[in-house]
């Protein structure tokens, strides 16, 4: 089509982030006329994946428009290689990389996976196992005590269950008993409400030591399993218990020794692309590089028009390009008051080594892991004990099996809720500490890195506010390191409003063409 001006649609979806794309997928068999736009010229919004060049353009572009941006303070650094050592990998060409803005892990029992199967798009996706979880333990040897021998820090594997605890050489008997007692409790904690109900609001660390005599040394690994970005002093029992239970219960669901997966090729972006593709096949029209006009006076000629044939309310909206479209439904991200926004300091680092020690085999005949989780607990990176309590730093390490970088390299996705420059410094420290602690020779170097602040708004700009109940707003992304099933709840809610009673089952489709099922 040459122009969109004066076209009519049933649904206008603004932004191709995960929530919007899943909605497009859900609507892909409905026969509705869908126009799906994104002001960016790439798919995925805040969940996109970039080549090096795309990342560089992204960095420039967003910097110019930081009022309601999802990403701010972006800076890229490319260290100059000091020597040309042919055996050490150097930065490869731009398209050899697919850097994920959203490298979330997906737990095995997540409804997302079930819906990807029932909607049949799973065939276009590949998932890889998340393997070992590591906790960094700072060595002894403070600046204050010159007499104790300085011990280097080490990465300790987090036990996944009884057999891991059994084989551990570091914990003493009593510590193992305490840990096992807690692990036995957590596998059915819902049925033992008397143990924890009254302590819901209590700090999780206090709960551990009071109810289970778990020593301080074990608190960090258990907190790590909760995968939360808040400081320990802000982590309640109520928050931690279900998340740790989810982690432990997921192990073994897809295979021995692991409990979560990541999509191949660049995090959640692959899912957004597959979802949009399915929507396009179903007739949806896609336009990148075109968003809604955001001039205040007429962002949308938001006039409600009753069409002659039916009394369906319709809205007129103006795109950035000046074209005017009419649609029954509009859906996009909502504007958030700044008090409700949360932020994370994040960095993506390309490293000149496969960091093999972080990826030991999971179990016999289990898939090779492509992601390792490294947690730097609160306080493990700071020198002086007098500094204020810092939040943890998490690093998701992706191997080249993900397709996100060439063989021989790996990608570090680091994030922390510590704000400002100190947040960036903490991330740097974590990355450097990880690279110097992993036993790899030669010491791996950074080939390229980007750092940025992510805000919990979507990546495609918010919808204008409106009293019109045909304007649907997705809540902000939660920036949870693990995929939050609530996202699907939001998508379903929106789908329900649009489809009413005519929708059939949510995200349950038949194959469009008969497919020879290789598994049978």
């Amino acid at each position, binding site marked *: 089509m040459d122009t969109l001006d004066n076209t009519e649609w049933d649904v206008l979806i603004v932004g191709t982030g995960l929530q919007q794309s899943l909605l497009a997928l859900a609507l892909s068999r409905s026969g509705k006329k869908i126009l799906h736009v994104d002001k960016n010229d790439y798919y995925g919004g805040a969940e996109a994946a970039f080549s090096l060049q795309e990342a560089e353009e992204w960095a420039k572009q967003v910097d110019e428009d930081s009022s309601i941006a999802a990403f701010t303070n972006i800076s890229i650094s490319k260290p100059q290689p000091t020597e040309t050592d042919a055996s050490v990998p150097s930065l490869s060409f731009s398209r050899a990389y697919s850097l994920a803005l959203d490298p979330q892990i997906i737990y095995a029992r997540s409804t997302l996976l079930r819906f990807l199967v029932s909607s049949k798009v799973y065939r276009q996706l590949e998932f890889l196992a998340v393997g070992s979880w590591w906790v960094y333990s700072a060595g002894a040897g403070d600046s204050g005590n010159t007499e104790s021998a300085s011990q280097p820090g080490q990465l300790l594997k987090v036990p996944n269950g*009884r057999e891991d605890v059994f*084989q551990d050489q570091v914990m003493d008997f009593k510590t*193992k008993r305490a840990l096992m*007692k807690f692990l036995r409790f957590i596998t059915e904690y819902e049925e033992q409400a008397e143990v924890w109900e009254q302590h819901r609001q209590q700090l999780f660390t206090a709960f551990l030591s009071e109810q289970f005599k778990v020593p301080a040394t074990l608190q960090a690994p258990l907190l790590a399993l909760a995968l939360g970005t808040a400081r320990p002093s802000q982590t309640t029992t109520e928050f931690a218990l279900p998340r740790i239970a989810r982690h432990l219960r997921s192990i073994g669901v897809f295979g021995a020794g692991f409990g979560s997966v990541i999509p191949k090729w660049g995090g959640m972006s692959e899912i957004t692309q597959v979802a949009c593709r399915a929507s396009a096949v179903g007739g949806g029209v896609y336009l990148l590089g075109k968003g809604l006009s955001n001039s205040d006076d007429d962002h949308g000629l938001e006039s409600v028009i009753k069409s002659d044939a039916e009394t369906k309310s319709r809205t007129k909206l103006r795109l950035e390009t000046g074209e005017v479209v009419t649609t029954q439904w509009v859906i996009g991200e909502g504007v958030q008051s700044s008090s409700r926004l949360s932020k994370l300091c994040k960095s993506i680092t390309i490293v000149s080594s496969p960091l093999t020690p972080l990826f030991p085999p999971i179990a016999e005949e289990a898939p090779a892991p492509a992601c390792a989780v490294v947690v730097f607990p609160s306080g493990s990176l700071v020198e002086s004990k007098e500094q204020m309590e810092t939040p943890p730093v998490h690093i998701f390490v992706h191997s080249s099996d993900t397709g996100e970088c060439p063989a021989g390299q790996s990608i570090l996705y680091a994030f922390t809720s510590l704000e400002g420059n100190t947040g960036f410094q903490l991330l740097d420290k974590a990355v450097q500490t990880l690279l110097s602690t992993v036993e790899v020779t030669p010491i791996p170097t950074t080939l390229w890195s980007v750092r940025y602040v992510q805000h919990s708004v979507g990546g495609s700009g918010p919808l204008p506010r409106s009293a019109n109940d045909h304007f649907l707003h997705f809540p902000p992304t939660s920036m949870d390191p693990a995929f939050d099933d609530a996202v699907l709840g939001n998508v379903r809610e929106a789908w329900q409003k649009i489809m009413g009673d005519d929708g059939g089952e949510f995200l349950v489709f038949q194959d469009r063409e008969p497919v020879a099922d290789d598994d049978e």
Partner: protein
Amino acid sequence: MASHGVSRVEGTKVRSAEVRQKELEQIAAYKELVDLVNTKINERQYTIEVLGLVTKLLNENPEYYTIWNHRRRILGALLDAPLGGDHSPQDFHGRELIDGELSLTFALLRKFPKCYWIWNHRNWILGKGEATFDIDAARELWSGELHLIGKMLHADSRNFHAWSYRREAVAHLERIPIAQPPTNPTPSCPLQSLAESEFEYTTKMVKTNLSNFSAWHNRGKLIPRLLDERGADDTARRHLLDDELSLICEAINTDPFDQSIWYYHQFLMSTLSPECPRQNRIVLTLSNLDRQKYYAHEMKYIQEIIEDESDCKWIYESLLSLSISYLEVDGSTQVFKTADMRSWLAHLKRLDPLRHGRWEELGKTLDI
């Protein structure tokens, strides 16, 4: 009935009239097939065609053991029947039959991994195969078996059929000499013991899953033999016993609620007893003083666990059992008192009220 946490699909469902009709037809067809097979067998028609009928029947009901017996009659006849003077086509035909049987039982075992009759038949086939082929082929058959058993144990590591069969396969491999190359006129040791590798295998299995009765059991059976084969002297034997005790105590500490771990501990303790027969013993030169030390050490270790797990019945049961063994060696011990034993018994009664009678009886026998 659930097996190791995997529940079998229960039979009673509400059935529609069509489904019921279909089932009646299936039952009639099945009965017809049974009658046909039985008739043919009675008439001694041991042919390939009847073998096919038997295969069909067994695919539906591998538990019908008489039919397996019939099958073996047919196979025996087919394998032994002379095919004229030339020997080789017979061998080939025999190999085909044997391989066919191995495939059939393999496929059936995937659906029914615990059916005795399938395992039995496979065993018979291998014996028949060994009798028919040369040594290398025979070893190959049994090596293949060991490999298969490894896969089955990987799928369900606590299938005791598979473990029992593993011991058989190992015994066969140990019995069949390794074919020596023609250039080696005096074979030094054509027979190979697999005790070491089997021992390591049990280590691997318990590390994967501590609750593996069968793996612990197999380990226990291997140890005395292992020590004999190593020509272990007294020091080496004590060393191994200490290592085993360390291992199992580590396991008890990790999960005192797991019965299989306690069973192995009990087994190790039983090797200390003066009544233990020679072939089950680990250390051969135990004095009563040695025994006391072991019992006392174990009791002390186990008592520490009570600090954190005061409601585990196995702990008290074990303490009582150890104290009884101790008393048999030395009636006048200072390590524990009658009051202690009374207290452990009281805990047992509290934690295991279903066996109240047994604990009462025990109390009377011990006179505490």
